[in-house]
């Protein structure tokens, strides 16, 4: 058999398996029941009316705030990773390894227990402060690696050109390296933002007041109240409203830099 014929046969087989799987699913499943539980129009209406918009807004607030902190801490840590001073490098390295290896949920729970562990202490803007801090602490570890990679992707010659013009090391970093590094970093940073949007759902573990509900906590409580999964499906779609445009944006940017090369 020629390689070409064989490829054709394999292709036919692949489609065959797919069709068989779909037919089997259609035959076995109780579609009326599934639609009623997952895609119930009344439950969806109820979910929207009960405050889907406010939950969406909270998700955005939690994740954007976390991202701002992650960006600030992460840039500092990333520059520490590149420092000529050994201890700065080691501290930043330890931080990155520690928080990248840790489930984000643990950080959330630990922060929510802080007031218990240190009586009298409280994180400001509760619960926003707690969520922002948890997402910021974890996100910073990833942003730091992005910053480090971005700065290292700027050719050495750029710094040399800047220094040869008499610019100080700090000025060369600020005016020449970072603007280029941030341009390189925009796609990975957007990916990080997408992850933070999803991770903001972990806030369910620390217990929120009704007025602070974000998409996941809101969807869960609606689903419980209506004894139907549809609210969670609606909440899930609401996440996609945020994350899909971002990820399409990343793809566009990556395609255009690939073309620019």
């Amino acid at each position, binding site marked *: 058999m020629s390689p070409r014929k064989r490829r054709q046969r394999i292709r036919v087989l692949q489609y065959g398996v797919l069709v068989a799987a779909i037919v089997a699913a259609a035959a076995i499943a109780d579609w009326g029941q599934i639609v009623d539980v997952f895609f119930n129009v009344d439950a969806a209406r109820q979910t929207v009316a009960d405050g889907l918009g406010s939950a969406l807004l909270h998700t955005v607030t939690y994740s954007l705030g976390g991202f701002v902190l992650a960006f600030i801490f992460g840039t500092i840590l990333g520059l520490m990773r590149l420092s000529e001073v050994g201890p700065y490098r080691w501290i930043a390295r330890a931080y990155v390894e520690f928080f990248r290896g840790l489930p984000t949920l643990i950080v959330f729970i630990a922060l929510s227990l802080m007031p218990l562990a240190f009586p009298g202490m409280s994180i400001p803007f509760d619960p926003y402060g707690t969520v922002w801090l948890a997402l910021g602490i974890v996100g910073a570890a990833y942003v730091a690696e992005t910053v480090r990679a971005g700065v290292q992707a700027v*050719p050495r*010659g*750029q710094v*040399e*050109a*800047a*220094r*040869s*013009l*008499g*610019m*100080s090391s700090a*000025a060369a970093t600020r*005016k*020449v390296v970072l*603007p*280029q590094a941030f*341009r390189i970093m925009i796609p990975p940073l957007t990916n990080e933002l997408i992850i933070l949007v999803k991770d903001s759902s972990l806030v369910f573990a620390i217990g929120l007041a009704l007025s602070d509900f974000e998409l996941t906590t809101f969807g869960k409580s609606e689903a419980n109240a209506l004894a139907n999964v549809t609210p969670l499906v609606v909440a899930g779609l609401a996440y996609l409203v945020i994350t899909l445009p971002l990820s399409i944006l990343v793809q566009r940017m990556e395609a255009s830099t690939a073309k*620019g090369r």
Partner: protein
Amino acid sequence: MTSNEQTPESSSPLVDIRNLHKSFGDNHVLRGIDFSVAPGEVVCVIGPSGSGKSTLLRCINMLEEPQVGDVVVRGEDLTDPDCDIDAARRHIGMVFQQFNLFPHQTALSNCTLAQRTVLGRPAAEATRVARMNLERVGLADKEDALPAQLSGGQQQRVAIARALSMAPLLMLFDEPTSALDPELVGEVLTVMRGLADEGMTMIVVTHEMAFAREVADRVVFMDGGVIVEEGTPAEVIGDPQEERTQEFLRRVLDPTNAGAL
């Protein structure tokens, strides 16, 4: 020459290098270089690949720090730990083989950035100086172009204008035409010839023997980290005394070998 090098006469050298040694790890690249350049002099440095030409040039503005020896520019020893190297570099322009233009900035901004950040010139004056120098290199009409929109020859001329905008006393060129397509070499050499005619002090690492012969006041042949031979172009290129110089020139000037460099 006599040993009155400390007296600030017009004949005192602009650059005076004594017993320069530079190693990268255990690779001893510069092995005792003595070299001086008078104001207004054009010196071409030639020699085989790996002989240390770039390293010597980069020691003159301390992009590489030598382990042994002095680099005295305008009477100031740049190897002195108390020397303000950023201040010294303002007077030493450098042009790189790979141009190293700032890709995120227009031709004009490339020429104003260091004027603004290093010299603290007001925007209007920096722009005026930048325009004057872009005109000097024949690119008055390209001030709004980004480096990626310019040909290699144009980029290199912007890089020259960028260095000139700091009003340097000395210009260092490290193989400024080696990365260019053959048909673009001429425009860059023309600009350099113009600079030499205006009396700029220049140290040029180059493989362009015709340029060296025509423009250089002095030619320095390096091999194995030492200066093997130096003199007028007629002496070094026209009538080399040292075996190694003869052997190098035979290879470079052999027309069947022209593409090998």
